[in-house]
């Protein structure tokens, strides 16, 4: 097994009485980009939460199956320990620290960086810690420069409170923040949500670039066109189960995926659709 591949095996998870994932297995080989598609409520975010150990924050729990990264079981660790192991998630809905400045958000991103502030700087390792501190500062500066390069707006707005950024700007910040941790595996939950076309394209480029620098990516995306272009393989979730899986290129040409996720309406289907639904939905006016 390669050093840094993610294996999700037979995972079942849910929220209270709600079962959101049933026996889901997903593989992210080292250095790959893997996409997960699926309708709203299919369980995509739940899958990422199951990997990043944050289900508990939503009142959910992992009920079965295993998750391992680089051969190490993850399902016993705390969310924070995962970051140290190199797995970093960009959560759904951005979740930037609204009252902190953009700069502090990025600093927060670097808190759990591998070999980061916590963990090493303890006890008799003072010397190494000092040496490490300098190296760490360097790496952090480099990471910051990279993030600023990717999203110049984050440099311009460094002192603005993150909560006041526009939706798209927050999305950039969320991604930038995650990159500060220098992840080996990046879990992305709809990174292009709410982004303007150009910005979405830039995110796509960024993902590709990050991936080229050796970070594996597990990508949850509504934007299936982008996702399937970026990914080497893909999974389709439906009501918590894996409905389809395979190389991205193959999925991209499958009718099912084309119709449901790429929004490609092939001619006959379109005809069907139009003949069936000759009308728009209607709602009567409210009197008075």
């Amino acid at each position, binding site marked *: 097994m390669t050093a840094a591949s993610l294996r999700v095996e037979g995972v079942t998870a849910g929220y209270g009485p709600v079962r959101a994932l049933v026996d889901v297995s997903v593989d992210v080989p080292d250095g790959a980009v893997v996409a997960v598609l699926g309708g*709203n409520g299919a369980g995509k975010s739940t899958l990422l939460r199951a990997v990043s150990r944050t289900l508990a924050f939503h009142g959910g729990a992992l009920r079965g199956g295993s998750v391992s990264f680089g051969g190490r079981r993850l399902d016993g660790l705390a969310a924070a320990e995962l970051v140290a192991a190199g797995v970093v998630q960009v959560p759904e809905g951005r979740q930037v620290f609204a009252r902190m400045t953009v700069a502090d958000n990025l600093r927060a991103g670097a808190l759990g960086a591998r070999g980061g502030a916590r963990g090493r700087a303890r006890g008799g390792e003072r010397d190494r810690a000092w040496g490490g501190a300098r190296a760490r500062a360097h790496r952090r500066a480099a990471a910051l420069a990279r993030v600023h390069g990717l999203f110049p707006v984050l440099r311009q707005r460094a002192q603005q409170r993150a909560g006041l950024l526009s939706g798209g700007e927050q999305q950039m910040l969320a991604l930038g923040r995650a990159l500060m941790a220098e992840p080996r595996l990046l879990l992305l939950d709809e990174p292009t949500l709410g982004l303007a076309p150009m910005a979405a394209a830039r995110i796509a480029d960024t993902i590709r670039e990050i991936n080229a620098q050796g970070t594996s990516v597990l990508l949850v995306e509504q934007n299936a066109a982008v996702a399937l272009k970026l990914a080497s393989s893909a999974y389709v979730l439906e009501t918590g189960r894996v409905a389809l899986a395979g190389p991205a290129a193959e999925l991209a040409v499958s009718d099912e995926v084309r119709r449901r996720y790429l929004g490609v309406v092939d001619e006959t289907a379109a005809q069907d659709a139009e003949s069936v639904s000759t009308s728009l939905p209607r709602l009567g006016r409210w009197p008075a």
Partner: protein
Amino acid sequence: MRGAPRSRRPPPGSRRPEPPSGPDGPAADAAGPVPAAPGVPELRVTGLTVRFAGLTALDDVSFTVRPGSVHAVIGPNGAGKSTCFNVLSGVYRATSGSVRLGGHELTGLPPHRIAGLGVARTFQNLALPPYATVSDTLMLGRHRLTRAGFLAAGLRLPSAAREEARHGARVREIAAFTGLEPYLDHPAGALPYGLQKLVELGRALCTEPRLLLLDEPVAGMTSAARRRTAALVAGIRDSLGISIVLVEHDMGVVMRLADEVTVLDFGRRIAGGAPEAVQRDPEVVRAYLGEAAPEDGGAPAAGRGHR
């Protein structure tokens, strides 16, 4: 087929996307394109400027929304679209400029007064209650149309009960229209993202608006759901005849729905007019759409849903 149906008010549904699974009775085809409903006023934004400490989010923006039309506002992230909505709905105060809805000046009014004039909106970042059911959430939309106060509700006066029943029926009607009926008893906060967006839309509809402001209504939806929602929006316009202002990054949806487009960049209006014209406008392409580099799907959102 890029650029979809452009003719104003095409025969109903002809090139429209598939409708939601809601009821579509035969009554539907009888009604042709509905003109603006009576009493739907024009929205006129003039010289709108909003400044935050050291940042001009909107800079002298003007546009007009014709009664009964869909007016799209597009622009890159941070261009000021949501800020514009926030001013229209009274959440922010404009630094200067005016917003007139028919005879009413909106700037300076508190949000609930603006809502009282028939302006409803959805939120880009969901603003739904975490525990209340969908049905209660929608009922909240009826607030401005109902009267029962502490006394009437506390004493359960018959008037309050009657009001509740009457408006409850309308809420179910709207829920059926938006496809939310099966979820009426679910807590809104635990629904999947896509459905939450629909609840937002339904709640706004429940206020029986004359002007509906939609902030990225299809963001986070699968493409099938996007089509359904777009059809829903078209359905709202056609059956209610109200004006709709739409902020959306999905150019497919914008092109399909909008009668007119205003483009913002860094708070300034850089273009405006008919959708096709705007889409070809080099300034817009530069600032927003990007040189569509087909190789990597440069503007992936654009063209989604129909190519």
